[in-house]
């Protein structure tokens, strides 16, 4: 593997007699989204503060592009830290400055750019983060979500190569949480920076993260992909991940992929050999258009409403669902054969047209001002047996998808 962008070797940090980080070893790679997960107060934010140089380790070394920071010259350290930007958990916006001035501050103070150029860059970020109306308001006059977006805009204004996000979704409702994560993923793809997140949003962060670092008992106990974390057998999984996933289920009606896998495993063990089950695959085809035209919040509203409705409908008959990708949901119907499943889907589609389409349409189209747009909802079903591989059944269900609903959004609707 390449040289890590940032590496901790045996980093220990103590406050008085309390050890917060003990012989922490971790690697963060360039161009990726790396998320640090762990319980509150475990020291996740402290890792970020070590990375950006706000705190120095008591023992161990931090390497930047393979070079120990402690051995760097002051100019080298300044150059390294100049590539970084930090979004604080509490936003740390200057409450005596307007949103515009907060975002412009790093450019005004650290560059020689002309006023017109600063204005152009700031306004571009303000538009990208949907803060146009709030540009000349003070942080205290904004909602929590808007403050987060203002902090995000300020963190990105200098086009940093590395952005550190300290609990970017804290204090947000589930929809906004996903909207912010989605926004981070979108900007990371767009600007190609290395993102390091501290987050509790399990499993949502899995969808946007390339790597997960698990901090438990003052140490990093896991480093790997979200898929690898699903097979990680450690007390961390029971104590941290399960509790966070349960909360997520209550809020969105959807299980995590890991929980889905466990439920599936339990069902398969219970069922007799050759017993059927069905997988229903749902996808929202133009979700990116919704994001572009109406914002991340609208897209997350649609996804949440879909999730809740699917859970309500299929949960009542023993089904369980999970989110597979940003715009894909799957539902498992245990003990159902294909004809039963198709009949259930028919009922679902009918109900969906009568009740849900209107709700989702209202959510998705609430801020339509420009040209009309459409959101297509697809569904496919496939049958499997207790002995068959679930992934191939999911793939089959995906290939069987057909349109079950189309939402048309236009101004005035």
């Amino acid at each position, binding site marked *: 593997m390449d040289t890590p962008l940032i590496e901790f070797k045996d980093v220990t940090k103590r406050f008085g007699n309390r050890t917060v980080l003990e012989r922490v070893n971790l690697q963060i790679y360039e161009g990726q989204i790396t998320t640090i997960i762990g319980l509150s107060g475990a020291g996740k934010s402290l890792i970020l503060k070590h990375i950006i140089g706000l705190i120095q380790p008591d023992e161990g070394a931090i390497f930047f592009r393979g070079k120990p920071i402690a051995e760097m010259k002051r100019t080298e350290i300044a150059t390294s830290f100049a590539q970084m930007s930090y979004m604080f958990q509490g936003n740390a916006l200057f409450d005596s400055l307007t949103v515009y001035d907060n975002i412009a501050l*790093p450019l005004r103070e650290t560059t020689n750019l002309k006023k017109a150029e600063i204005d152009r860059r700031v306004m571009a970020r303000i538009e990208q983060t949907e803060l146009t109306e709030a540009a000349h308001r003070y942080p205290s006059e904004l909602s929590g979500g808007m403050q987060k977006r203002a902090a995000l805009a300020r963190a990105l204004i200098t086009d940093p190569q590395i952005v550190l996000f300290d609990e970017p979704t804290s204090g947000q409702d589930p929809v906004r949480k996903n909207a912010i994560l989605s926004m981070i993923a979108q900007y990371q793809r767009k600007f190609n920076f290395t993102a390091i997140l501290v987050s509790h949003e399990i499993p949502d962060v899995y969808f946007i993260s390339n790597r997960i670092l698990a901090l438990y008992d003052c140490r990093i106990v896991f480093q790997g992909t979200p898929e690898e974390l699903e097979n990680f057998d450690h007390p961390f999984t029971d104590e941290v991940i399960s509790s966070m996933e349960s909360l997520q289920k209550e809020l969105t009606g959807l299980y995590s992929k890991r929980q889905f896998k466990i439920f599936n495993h339990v069902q398969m063990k219970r069922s007799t050999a050759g017993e059927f089950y069905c997988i229903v695959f749902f996808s929202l085809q133009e979700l990116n258009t919704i994001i572009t035209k109406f914002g991340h919040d609208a897209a997350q509203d649609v996804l949440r409403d879909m999730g809740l409705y699917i859970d309500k409908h299929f949960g009542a008959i023993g089904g369980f669902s999970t989110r597979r990708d940003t715009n894909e949901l799957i539902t498992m119907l245990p003990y159902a054969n294909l004809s039963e499943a198709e009949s259930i889907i028919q009922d679902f589609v009918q109900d969906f047209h009568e009740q849900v389409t209107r709700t989702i349409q209202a959510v998705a189209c609430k801020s339509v001002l420009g040209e009309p747009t459409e959101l297509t909802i697809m569904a496919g079903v496939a049958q499997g047996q207790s002995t068959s591989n679930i992934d191939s059944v999911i793939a089959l269900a995906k290939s069987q998808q057909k349109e079950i609903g189309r939402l048309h959004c236009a101004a005035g609707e």
Partner: protein
Amino acid sequence: MAFIANSQSGSKNETKGGPGTLVLRPFAFVGRTVIDWVDNLGAATIFLFTALTKTFGRKQLFKIVEQIYYIGARSITIIMLVSLFTGMVLGLQSYHALVKFGAQGALGSLVSLSLIMELGPVLTAIMITARAGSAITAEIGIQRISEQIDALHTMRINPLRYLVSPKIIAAIISFPLLTAVFDLVGIIGGYISGVVLLGVNAGVYLHSIQTYVDLRDIINGFIKVIVFAVIVSTVCCYQGYFAHMRKDSHGAQAVGLATTSAVVLSCVLILVSDYVVTSLLI
């Protein structure tokens, strides 16, 4: 400077048990307090000089002017009000004292010299401490506990350059200007009570000022107030900047206590340094 001395000293050096403990305790306390005072004095001096080295950066002028407006211009009303009544009461009291010796002709010089050499610098510094100094501590303290100062670090903006240096320079400029206003309005106050209300001859009042007030007296007054400006601005900024390090309190309470400490300590130091500077200048 004991502003965070008590809070930071903690109890880690306290000895436990042993027959000599009780006897040693008062000495240990005095020693610890002195060490903390010296520690804080050293830290505040380094803080001041580091901030002063950041004065001549880019875009500092605008920030200094902004702070002069905040510390100076916005304090004018209260300074004028206080100085008017100080001058009036000084005129009134001095008249009744002087009349016993038949020396009411010296009223102008007594009022003006008292104001220029002593009351002007001291009362101006105390009034600005109460009005702007407390606000400076609270502002910087809140910025500290809400991580705004950490945010400046992460944005590669030096907080001393951005927040502290303009305030200290603005104080050094504003204090003498406000003292001049205080002196002038105070003398007018003395004129109102002495001449207008008590009937001292206007020409005598003004001639007495012209005769006895020396340029050196005015310069000495300004030297004093510049010393006060440095003390007040440093104490107030330092208290706010390190509000998060107080061990006797946290968060908003720490900011509140830092503000109280800043005001009390500034006032005490103004009076102490007034004596020291006066004895050096006389």
